């Protein structure tokens, strides 16, 4: 097993809401090893994005962040915003959900990629342009030399996401965090972008965190999956183990809601109810009100994330008691 690249330890995030602090992240601990691909899955508002925006100090200054972030074993949480800038892009790169609005509308894409190249590798303008062209080639944008002078609004969403990936690769990062990179794109384009991410990871050996609300998307290109619910990780397992033998009722629910291309036709089961409001979480397990396997203890105490096997963790009092979604259905 390779050394940990980045470790999040008991990360919490609070946002000020009308004079109160509302906790969005309840102590998330996560380890990414060099070169590994982790899927981070959960519904909107589960804290997937906030986790990585907090770890890279991209949250608004008014958010209160606690806990530790270790990069190569060294804490980076105490760094100032400007010191953090040398970590971002160079060590940890990020790409986001809506590629077109994530690019500056008044700068040419070549300029925007070149800016990252110059920043991280100290190239002059001409060399940065040549490198930007090479990066566009690498992300398979046709006639890359001509695209350098295009503006984001002249390109499609899929091409812009390739530009974002090219820009992320400019700093030769050790970790790429892709936050819902395909959510805003057409289904056919989604697959191409996921393939590209997998290819870039193979070529560069960088680690990848793929944030998605869709288990199906992360299944193909990640090694390990962490499932988040209401600001906590509720289950973490190697991707095959998670699909074969989900232990947490929430994970089971997500899988039951996923269409199965290969298997027999069956009715998809939706998880009833909604993600609770972070300002009014239930006192016990946050999933208990929606959980078909919930017992009396679930509504009073919060289950901790415990190892249930050598390489997997689950936060459920009833982990391994059966498959409640099949029982319920």
């Amino acid at each position: 097993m390779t050394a940990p690249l980045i470790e999040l330890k008991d990360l919490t995030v609070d946002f000020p809401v009308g004079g109160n602090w509302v906790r969005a992240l309840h102590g998330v601990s996560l380890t990414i090893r060099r070169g590994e691909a982790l899927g981070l899955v959960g519904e909107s508002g589960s804290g997937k994005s906030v986790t990585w925006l907090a770890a890279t100090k991209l949250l608004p200054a008014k958010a209160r962040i606690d806990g530790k972030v270790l990069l190569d074993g060294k804490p980076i949480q105490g760094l100032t915003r400007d010191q953090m800038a040398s970590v971002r892009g160079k060590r940890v790169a990020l790409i986001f959900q809506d590629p077109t609005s994530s690019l500056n509308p008044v700068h040419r894409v070549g300029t925007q990629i070149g800016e990252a190249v110059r920043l991280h590798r100290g190239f002059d303008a001409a060399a940065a342009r040549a490198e930007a062209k090479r990066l566009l080639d690498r992300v398979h944008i046709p006639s890359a030399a001509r695209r350098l002078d295009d503006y984001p609004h002249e390109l499609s969403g899929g091409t812009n996401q390739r530009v974002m990936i090219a820009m992320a690769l400019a700093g030769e990062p050790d970790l790429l965090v892709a936050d819902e990179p395909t959510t805003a794109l057409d289904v056919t384009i989604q697959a191409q972008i996921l393939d590209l991410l997998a290819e870039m990871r193979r070529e560069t050996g960088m680690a990848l965190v793929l944030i998605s609300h869709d288990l199906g998307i992360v299944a193909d290109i990640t090694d390990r999956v962490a499932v988040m619910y209401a600001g906590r990780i509720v289950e973490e397992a190697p991707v095959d183990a998670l699909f074969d033998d989900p232990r947490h009722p929430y994970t089971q629910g997500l899988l039951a809601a996923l269409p199965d291309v290969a298997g027999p036709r069956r009715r998809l089961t939706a998880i009833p109810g909604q993600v609770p409001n972070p300002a009014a979480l239930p006192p016990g397990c946050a999933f208990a009100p929606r959980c078909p396997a919930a017992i009396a203890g679930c509504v009073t105490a919060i289950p901790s994330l415990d190892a249930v096997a050598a390489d997997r963790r689950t936060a459920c009092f009833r982990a391994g008691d059966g498959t409640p979604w099949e029982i319920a259905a």
Partner: protein
Amino acid sequence: MLGYVASRAFRALVTILLVLTFAFFILNATGDPAILILSADAPPEAIEAFREEWGLNAPLWKQYIGYLWNLAHGELGRSMRDGRDAWAVVSERIPVTLAITIPALIIKLVIGISAGIVAALWRDTWVDRLVMAFSVTGYTVPSFVLGLALMLVFAVQLGWLPAAGADSWRHAILPIITLGVAGAAVLARFTRSAMLEVLGQPFIRTGLAKGLVWRAVVIGHAFPNAAIPTLTIAGFMIGSLVAGAVVVESVFAWPGVGRLLVSAVGNRDLMVVQAILLLVTVTMVSANLIVDIVYGFVDPRLRTARGGQARGGT
């Protein structure tokens, strides 16, 4: 791009013609220049002679055609007061007005834009609240009130500066400050909201995510985008350089174009009023035209909206 400029220029010409037409008919409908200039007690023969001399007996539409015809030949007519060429009367006032409006414009741009940026970057802090308090005061207080207040404090009470007139550069200071403060207040508010809008955009986060420090993101990514809406209001201010000081010139007895306009309207000196309106319309319309063209350079989205097309598959 060329077609765009040509169509904007054509629209500008139509605008100017419309303004001149309105001005001509409204001014002619609101009073008889012969009576106003010679006074109602003047002998009827004198009034008749005056009408004859200025062509006021012809039907209005003939006067209008004649006016346009002369205009097309570069003739703006003569002042009915003293018979001087109307354009000469107006043009000698232009430098006098610019002497206060250009320094005021510099104050507006420098103070207004920087205050707006500072307020946006330190949003919801005491700096922001201070800037906004000044801004609200600056643009809600009418300029004649502000001018009189400044005059009261700095001329009457403290005696540091002359109250009115145009005998020295010191006379220009209070009019310049009066004009500058009001404009800076408007521009500060505009710039602040433009900056806040831009700072909330996803590409600002991308700038930080790629490793730029905050300062570099603000300068390299926020400013060029926030400049686009700010340009509109700045262009409007440039367009009003010639005629934007009517009230302030009156308050401070500054003998510029604005004061000439007030007295020419009062005197029914039609040709002078029309010459001033033409000047004002042309400067305002040209400033708008220039802003439109500059937009095309600053905002690439407008450039392609006019002729280019989206390229590239995925």
